[in-house]
């Protein structure tokens, strides 16, 4: 049976893992290579590394960090942040990424999704969507933001998700900006709205605080995978303990791992 995936995310700035609350208030959480290895050993099904300041400061993805992190990693490894062209994506793949995620650049020029897919396969392209609810409106009106959550785009998350799929995205990484960093639970309603609109897998992100939150996002949110960062970094929830709790809840997990 296909299991639900638990993905550990490393938000990286200047070669260090950091974590903010609702995209601000950054604190240091350690070395990316070391943390990636630790999460994989604890049972993380995938590792995602996001260079969170790349778009804002116009920097490219930190290839040496990617290379160092990929070195001892034998689970799928996704890298995102500041990838604007198929050539930039190629350099990240060469450094050891199995998938790349694109966000701002894909919104600016949606052809990028197909261009990277044509060279590396659709399965290697994740479109990351940062969305925020618009108060007083239906969930379908949730808006997409770019540049690390700094810039509204006027686009609706569900509609952009459909376009990304049509253009050849292999998966979607949906982050609820309202929930991100709060540890109060995923936005299950938003996740379900996107997951039901597309045929490709959806990774839910933002708001993980305890095992119950993951169960909810897999059941009610219809997520195929769920991503979390801060709860793992500070040892609040070990990946293995989380997976065991989810399996007891009836969610199919890769165990033992």
């Amino acid at each position: 049976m296909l299991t639900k995936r638990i993905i550990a995310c490393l938000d990286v700035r200047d070669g260090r893992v950091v974590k903010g609350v609702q995209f601000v208030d950054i604190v240091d959480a350690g070395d990316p290579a070391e943390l990636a290895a630790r999460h994989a050993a604890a049972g993380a099904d995938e590792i995602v590394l996001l260079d969170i300041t790349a778009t804002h400061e116009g920097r490219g993805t930190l290839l040496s960090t990617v290379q160092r992190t990929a070195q001892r990693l034998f689970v799928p490894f996704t890298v995102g942040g500041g990838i604007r062209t198929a050539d930039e994506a190629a350099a990240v793949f060469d450094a050891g990424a199995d998938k790349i995620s694109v966000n701002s650049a894909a919104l600016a020029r949606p052809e990028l999704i197909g261009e990277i897919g044509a060279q590396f396969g659709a399965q290697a392209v994740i479109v990351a969507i940062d969305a925020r609810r618009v108060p007083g409106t239906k969930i379908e009106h949730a808006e997409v933001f770019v540049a690390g959550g700094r810039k509204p785009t006027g686009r609706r998350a569900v509609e952009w998700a459909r376009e990304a799929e049509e253009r050849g995205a292999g998966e979607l990484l949906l982050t609820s900006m309202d929930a991100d960093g709060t540890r109060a639970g995923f936005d299950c309603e938003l996740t379900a709205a996107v997951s039901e609109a597309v045929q490709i897998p959806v990774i839910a992100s933002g708001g993980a605080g305890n095992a119950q939150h993951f169960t909810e996002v897999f059941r009610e949110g219809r997520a195929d995978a769920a991503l979390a960062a801060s709860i793992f970094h500070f040892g609040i929830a070990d990946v293995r303990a989380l997976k065991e709790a989810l399996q007891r809840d009836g969610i199919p997990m890769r165990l033992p791992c």
Partner: protein
Amino acid sequence: MIAVIDYKAGNLTSVMKALRAAGTDPVVTDDAGMVRRADRIILPGVGHFAATRFLEERGLKAAIAERIDAGAPFLGICVGLQWLFAGSTEAPGCAGLGAFPEMCEKFAPGKKVPHVGWNSLAIQPGSRLLAGIPDGSFVYFTHSWRAPVVQDTAAVTEYGEPFTAAVERGNVMGVQFHPEKSGETGLRVLRNFLELPGC
């Protein structure tokens, strides 16, 4: 010499890294002459089945067929497994090696595609490629087309329907999953392949 064939379908970094971790130092090549000198051949690949046309164009297909006849162990990964079959509906004009006469087809509607993530293996007893791997072990998949279950299927995985996760006949082997991304289980598959008697 172990040849990893580069047919411009996806990235080889992870496969090379895993093969090195499994204790070997293979050569990446798109040259038929090199393939004819290889003791062992690995055909990786993610992406579109049409990419395998490159194998025909460069004379690699004939070289691979010769080496297989001579007894060299061959491992196809992902699209590399599908290529062992007659072909795929993903690229109908593009013939596979035909070691297995069936066609690869897209997953039936009703499930999300691609099939992405960790799924379990129902392993046939006696598989040399999967020796020592417990039945029910999880490996990582990412694909939208799949090979049917055939007589030489060495492991079956279910995703809406059963399909071939590993196939094995003599020295001809393939895995639909990615051993280079499947943790310790995947490295064990690679080591098993590398330890098979050569020709």
